[in-house]
């Protein structure tokens, strides 16, 4: 990318309300640094305390999600993308990461119902899921037991959106994108 394109890229990002964008390797250190940055960005706004907590919580859940769903076989390297932005008086958090195609259906099964549930139903499911400690033995892939998606859905003010994109040359990976508006 040359400087002109980079300047266009920055302008476009500002126009689209982007506060924060990262793509690449995800690790505890990276997430920690991003958390610090985001926290100070949010403190500089007139946002109410509960809203700040929700945006921050959603960011943390989605970062964890990238870590969880990234391919466990890929030498321990977890990659993905994360963005936080503002659209009018709403904030949004988006994440993207590669997932092995064989897990796509499982992810859909977890996310799809959340899109039609009411806030009360989501809260009930969240409490139910907290009590369900059997899960950890039956599902080795999803350590968070779907709690992460429930947390994100609980803090969102609109149904969460997701997309699965198949683009890999070998159909080994799909890209999973998630968006929550707060």
């Amino acid at each position: 990318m040359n400087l002109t394109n980079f300047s266009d890229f920055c302008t476009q990002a500002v126009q689209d309300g982007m506060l924060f964008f990262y793509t690449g390797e995800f690790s505890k250190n990276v997430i920690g640094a991003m958390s610090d940055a985001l926290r100070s960005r949010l403190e500089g706004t007139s946002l109410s305390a509960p809203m700040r907590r929700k945006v921050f919580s959603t960011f943390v859940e989605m970062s964890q999600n990238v870590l969880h769903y990234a391919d466990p076989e890929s030498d321990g390297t977890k990659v993905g993308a994360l963005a936080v932005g503002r659209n009018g008086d709403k904030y949004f958090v988006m994440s993207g990461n590669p997932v092995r195609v064989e897990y796509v259906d499982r992810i859909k099964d977890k996310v799809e119902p959340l899109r039609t549930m009411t806030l009360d139903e989501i809260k009930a499911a969240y409490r139910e899921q907290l009590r369900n400690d059997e899960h950890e033995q039956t599902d080795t892939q999803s350590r968070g037991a779907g709690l992460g998606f429930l947390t994100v859905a609980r803090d969102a003010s609109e149904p969460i959106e997701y997309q699965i994109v198949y683009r890999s040359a070998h159909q080994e990976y799909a890209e999973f994108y998630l968006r929550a508006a707060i």
Partner: protein
Amino acid sequence: MSNEDNLAAAIATHAAPHVLITRTEGLLIDAQAVTPASTNEDVFRLFEENPALVGLPVIEQNRPIGLINRNIFMQSFARPFHREIYLQKSCIAFMDKEPLIVEQRDSIQDLSFKVIAGGDKALADGFIITDDGDYAGVGRASDMLKAVADLQAEKNRLVMESIDYASVIQQSLSRASRESLRRTLADHFLIWEPRDVVSGDFYYFHAYEDGFLAILFDCTGHGVPGAFMTLIMSAFLQSALNEEGPRDPGRLIAAINRRVKQAMGQIDHSHGEPDAEPVSDDGMDAAFCWVDTQNRKLRYAGAHMPLFLLRPGETEITTVDGDRAGVGYATTPMEQQWTTHEIDLPQGTAVYLFSDGCTDQLGGGKGIAFGKRRIRENLMSNMHRPMPEQRVALLSAFGAWQGEHVRKDDVAALGFRI
């Protein structure tokens, strides 16, 4: 020795303008290769450093196991997260596991069939060349196409050279006839136009003390096989002439018929033996004219080839049809006889013979045959002119009729006024 070797040997003896590539090894490009231990990062760097590099072979213990296509690799790397996931992984992740692999001793022809069978992939990516299974290098489809085109042009040149020389031989064989014709007949024309350099149509003319023998014949086929047949028929004609003499054309044709059928085994075995060795079924149409110059008589016998006659003072051309039997064909019996017609020749009579290439030529806008009627009309309208002028008029009418249509067959005609 294979055909390619023969060709290569033939080409070697010629002063070819440049060296022809006949084997795959001539296309060899000494290309860099990687091993499964190489990472995608290594491959990425190689592609970035060598913009001309289209494909990168992957070899394992000196055997090729795949080919990495530049475009596919670079596109894959441009996708989200792929770079991060694959950068440090083995380069086999993006290689084509079934590239076209050819041996360097393969002929260019074998190679071209393989590349075409390989579809677009081999045309775009090229192919890996091995030496007894070991990696030797790569080849480009564009280089192969050039080699194929060069070989094709060279083959074509050799074939045409060969046919051109065959034409020299064929024309030498008829030189005696042409010279005798010129000495004997003051007013005559000859048309001999091979469709393809050499012709299946041929003629024979020989003068004797008491007259002359004029023959036009049209052998099966055209081009090289047709020309072969004219040589065979000329030999049988000589042999039959020695035995029968020139004065009874019907007997002469019958004698040739027997010789052809015997020599070429063209006897109809249609009863039974479905597995019998296929026999050839070649022969000729012909018009034989013995002209008795002392008594002014024409003796004509025809096999599928008519005689046109215009006596002085007449206003219409007389057509004398030959017999329906062709000479030498499997379906013509061994003992077939041909009718000899005896015709009076008043002073100034014009005689014409035409091969079916003249009458059957398609053209005239609607693509229909030129036909006997147009030939007769053309002869009639030029009847008072000398024979060489009639020839010009006939050929120009014929050429105009043919127009954009392709020449269908060899064309031959003989005309004389006596």
